[in-house]
């Protein structure tokens, strides 16, 4: 679903990404991890088309991202780390607005709102202003917006930071359900290794702008040792 080939991005003299290549198979949940400054945010920006790399290419669903940005972006559902919502609007209004932006309308929009509302367990609070939501509810709504229109590819940037246990469970279960039932391809970044272990099939590890582990099977990892132990032994030295 995603093919990244020798992507390099410099900020001044510093290489944020240094010739990285990897691919994300269709229908997989791929974890993207790395220490602060490893290049995750830059990579996410490039994959969203917000930052143009200095060299290399990115294909999304077979389409060259930077040659046909509009078409490629239509496949992407993006859930940023910040709760990028309108706090003075209700949950429903937020969903309607972003749904319309996504190109949905009429029955498709209504159905999609209902679907994501149920998936993220926000039915009871949907007509309340978002500013009255708890942090966890806001994160769930943040996710729900990313799910609108059922995009085939979902980017999640630390979606559970600062979230209560109940909301964390709902978010993780929703992602698993999206992947298993709809075949959504998910690229997931998180600092919580237990979450990565729990939901991801594969793992990409970035360190200092290079991919140090690509297409690492989390299932295989689980059989041998814990992810935390693997990282300690192979990366964090």
């Amino acid at each position: 679903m995603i093919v990244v080939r020798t992507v390099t991005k410099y900020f001044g003299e510093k290489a944020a990404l240094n010739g990285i290549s990897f691919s994300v198979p269709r229908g997989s949940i791929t974890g993207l991890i790395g220490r602060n400054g490893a290049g995750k945010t830059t990579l996410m920006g490039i994959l969203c088309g917000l930052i143009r790399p200095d060299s290399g290419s990115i294909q999304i669903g077979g389409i060259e991202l930077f040659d046909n940005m509009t078409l490629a972006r239509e496949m992407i559902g993006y859930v940023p780390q910040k709760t990028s919502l309108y706090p003075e609007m209700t949950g429903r209004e937020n969903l309607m607005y972003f749904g319309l932006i996504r190109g949905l309308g009429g029955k498709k929009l209504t159905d999609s709102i209902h679907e994501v509302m149920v998936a993220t367990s926000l039915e009871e609070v949907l007509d309340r202003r978002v500013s009255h939501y708890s942090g966890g509810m806001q994160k769930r709504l943040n996710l729900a917006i990313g799910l609108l229109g059922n995009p085939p590819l979902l980017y999640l940037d630390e979606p559970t930071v600062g979230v209560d246990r109940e909301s964390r469970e709902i978010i993780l279960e929703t992602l698993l359900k999206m992947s298993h039932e709809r075949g959504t391809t998910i690229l997931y970044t998180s600092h919580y290794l237990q979450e990565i272990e729990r939901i991801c099939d594969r793992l990409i590890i970035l360190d200092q702008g290079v991919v140090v582990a690509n297409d690492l099977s989390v299932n295989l990892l689980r059989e041998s040792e814990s992810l935390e132990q693997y990282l300690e032994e192979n990366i964090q030295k």
Partner: protein
Amino acid sequence: MRKYAAGILKEFWLLKRDIHALMVLFVMPSLFILIMSLAMRDAFSQNSEVHFKAMVACEENSSASRDFLAHLKAIKGFEWSEGKSTQLPALMMEHDVLLGVIVRAGFDEATHKNSSQNPKLTLLIAPEATPLAKILFETAVAGTAAKINMVNQMSSLNPWMTREEKEEALVDKVWFEEHFLQGKDMTDIRPTSVQQSVPSWLIFSMFFIIIPISNTFVNERRLGTLARLAVMNVSIGNLLVSKMIPYFVINQIQFIAMLMVGMFIVPLFGGDALRIGDNIGALLVVSSILSFASISYALALASFVRTTDQAVTIGGVLNIIFAAIGGIMIPLFVMPPFMQQLALFSPMSWGLESFLAIFLHNSGWNDIWLSLGALILFGSFCLGLAAWKLNRELKEAQ
């Protein structure tokens, strides 16, 4: 198209919950128009009800002093009372009288001579008297004295002149008729306080669109919503245009509402009714271009500040400065020339000049194109600045 519709819908949702901003946009200018129109009514009115308090004291009881007093009291604009010459300064202080005149003994004799030596009138001017009041008073006294002097000299040359002939000579002749300059198709339109207040406070409130715009825009930038929208293929152009449309509608509602306040509400409280002239098309164009300028300015400002508080504070202060130098708070015509030059730097002044040209002179495009051109340039520059900053910020955010 759906993206524009979504953006417009979203701005209206946010705006309807921003009660404070709506108050600033609609209630504040309505109150200002009402208060300032009534407060400045007499200062603008041609049938002024303003009277300067004045006192007169006569040290002699002659026909000249009686004539002088009678004619002085007939002059409009003064409210006369009498006192004794020795007590006049004290009485003036006691009763807040600004102007006084003492007719000295020997006035009658002096008016029969053609000499300016040894004046027989003493003027007393309180320190609070404005230069305008002082000049009016001096002119009134000098004019009346000259008239008495002229008639008395005539009577000295013509001993057979009767009392009736003298009185007839003292009657004011009508030397002139007044015409107020106006547009070619208008009749009997005179500038009123409401014609100054309505456009002034309308423009002032239009520029306060910064409050609702910054409330949403700063949050969008702060919460990363702009990046999310960019990933959803919303361009910066799309974003700015879909923000401009709803606020343009709000500005136009303000425009109509404030005209209505001037036309129908101010008269209910005893003020003059606003007359807007016949060039409605030009008014709509001025209002539209002014709206474009004020929204673009608000977007530029909201693109550079970090918090809503900063936007409201900086925007508020800049608006007050623009208003102060632009003739919004104090009419330009009462400002000294260098301040009138300074007004050229205020976009509010460009809008005000255009509105006043249409209200008072029924002007066509020839008289307002320069101001409108300046507003379009200002708005385009601000919009470009906002687009540039957002573009840069989206890149930096990553």
